[in-house]
């Protein structure tokens, strides 16, 4: 668990570096509001989270993070173009039924979109599938097949192809090795464990 907490911190720091101080930030799948709390403390952002689960919203309210319980796509549709300075979709894309629709809607309602995900192409995941013939399990995907929700894993190659196909501009990327710390410059789809992208239309 501690390893995971450390990894989360790295992720938060990078997003924190990208976020403009005092900007209006929407976090899709905000969980208990840890990221927004961090951004509010360090960057004085005007944060807003969306999540489906009541107890996640409760966690946000306890932290003083503003949050909305409901469907993220329907939520974004209620806002005019470029209402948010930044929409964050961190470690949520693989859970979405229609990721393209969400990202495109985020690019409409936000000036910039930050997407972060665990790279499914990472070599250890390939080892699990190739040699053990089983669903990848690692510090991020910790659960067995029979205790997992349906997920739609994404690799760096998948994501970049998606951006190219939809004409989405990648303004920044942070590709990190398996330790989620060291930048990964060589064959990231194989050697990067985590990827963060900053997108605009």
């Amino acid at each position: 668990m501690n390893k995971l907490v450390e990894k989360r911190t790295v992720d938060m720091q990078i997003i924190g570096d990208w976020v403009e101080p005092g900007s209006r930030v929407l976090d899709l799948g905000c969980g208990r509001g840890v990221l927004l709390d961090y951004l509010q403390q360090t960057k004085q952002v005007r944060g807003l989270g969306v999540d489906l689960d009541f107890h996640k919203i409760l966690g946000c309210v306890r932290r003083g993070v503003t949050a909305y319980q409901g469907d993220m796509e329907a939520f974004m549709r209620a806002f005019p173009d470029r209402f948010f300075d930044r929409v964050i979709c961190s470690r949520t894309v693989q859970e979405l039924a229609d990721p393209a629709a969400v990202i495109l809607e985020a690019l409409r309602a936000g000036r910039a979109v930050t997407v972060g995900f665990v790279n499914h192409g990472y070599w250890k995941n390939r080892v699990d599938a190739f040699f053990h013939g089983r669903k990848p399990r690692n510090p991020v995907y910790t659960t067995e097949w029979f205790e997992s929700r349906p997920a739609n894993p994404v690799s760096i190659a998948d994501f970049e192809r998606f951006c190219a196909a939809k004409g989405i501009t990648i303004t920044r990327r942070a590709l990190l090795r398996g330790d989620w710390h060291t930048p990964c410059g060589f064959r990231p789809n194989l050697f990067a464990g985590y990827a963060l992208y900053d997108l605009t239309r």
Partner: protein
Amino acid sequence: MNDAEEDIPIVPPEPGEVGLVEPHDFVHAQPFTFESGQVLPGFTLRYETYGRLNAARDNTVVICHALSGDHHCAGIHALTDAKPGWWNNFIGPGKAIDTNQFFVLCANVLGGCQGSSGPSSTDPRTGRPFGLAFPFVTIRDMVHAQKLLCDHLGLASLAAVIGGSMGGMLVLQWGIEYPAFVRRLIPLATTARESAQAIAFNEVGRQAIMQDPEWNHGDYPKGGGPRVGLAVARMMAHITYLSDESMDQKFGRRRTKRLTPATSGLPPAGANAPAAYTFDVQFEVESYLRHQGESFINRFDANSYLYITRALDHFDLTAAHGSLEQAFAAVEAGTLSVAFTSDWLFPSAQNREIVLALLRAGKRASYAELATNLGHDSFLLESEDLYTLVRSFLGSPRSP
């Protein structure tokens, strides 16, 4: 996704009771102009308070009651009381609204009949009840009167205003009318705009009252009036506060133990038929609704029912301000809105719309939804989740 670890568990303090309380009367002896332009030479609001006002006079939580509620929301008036105030589960030492921390204020609305000025009050000009001579009351008038009470009590600002149903409308109006005076708004199970369906139910209730010959155009003595009409109005309205599922769980098709005549003072309906084949009360749900109707006529005034349901019908922040975003443009408070999945009188979509408009207007507003099967009355339910949510919002670290 961002935080798999559990939050530190919340250990609420052992809840205590407010205990013995007594109502007070605030008499405003100056002319009060209603939104309609009508003027009363003065008015009275009956209210209760629990807890202590702090030195800064800024720890007050105002409770706004629903259509048939009153100022007695917690504690008991006498040790022999069968029931405590209507929100006793929510308010008290260590409870969701902690009276160790907050000074709680609840007033019977203007136009009501539990001690505040309303159509059943005595008109000083005639020495008889006002009846329909009482000015038309709006949600805004109710809030204006409550603000005068707050000023009378010397309150510097309000920590929060909270209420469900009609109470939620007052909460929203508070945030709009007195933005600098209120720090937090908690509207529950409410709407910014009374829907056609809700108006329709109100109208059926009013017709039941006004078609009762005892109503007599609102002119009836104290203790008299359209008792049958008011009971029918209450029976009908009560159905809208429940849900199909909760009624089925509570009553199902269970039969009453003994048959009660369908109409009092008359021979049993269908007297010649065998007992099971009459229109006497047979089902528990019928018996329950009758009990609701009968207990209501002993505590509520029919004209007040007309006035307050009309105030609900007229509540439409969108029409009053051009748009809901404009309505909320002045709001400074942080808002927490809570809806209940089984509420079909003020469905969650109407509560969501409040929060979305606040957010579009650039305000801080959170929205949470509780999965319940109790219908509109869910906001009164005993729910640790609701308690924790409200307690957390009232104590949230960042001033909204």
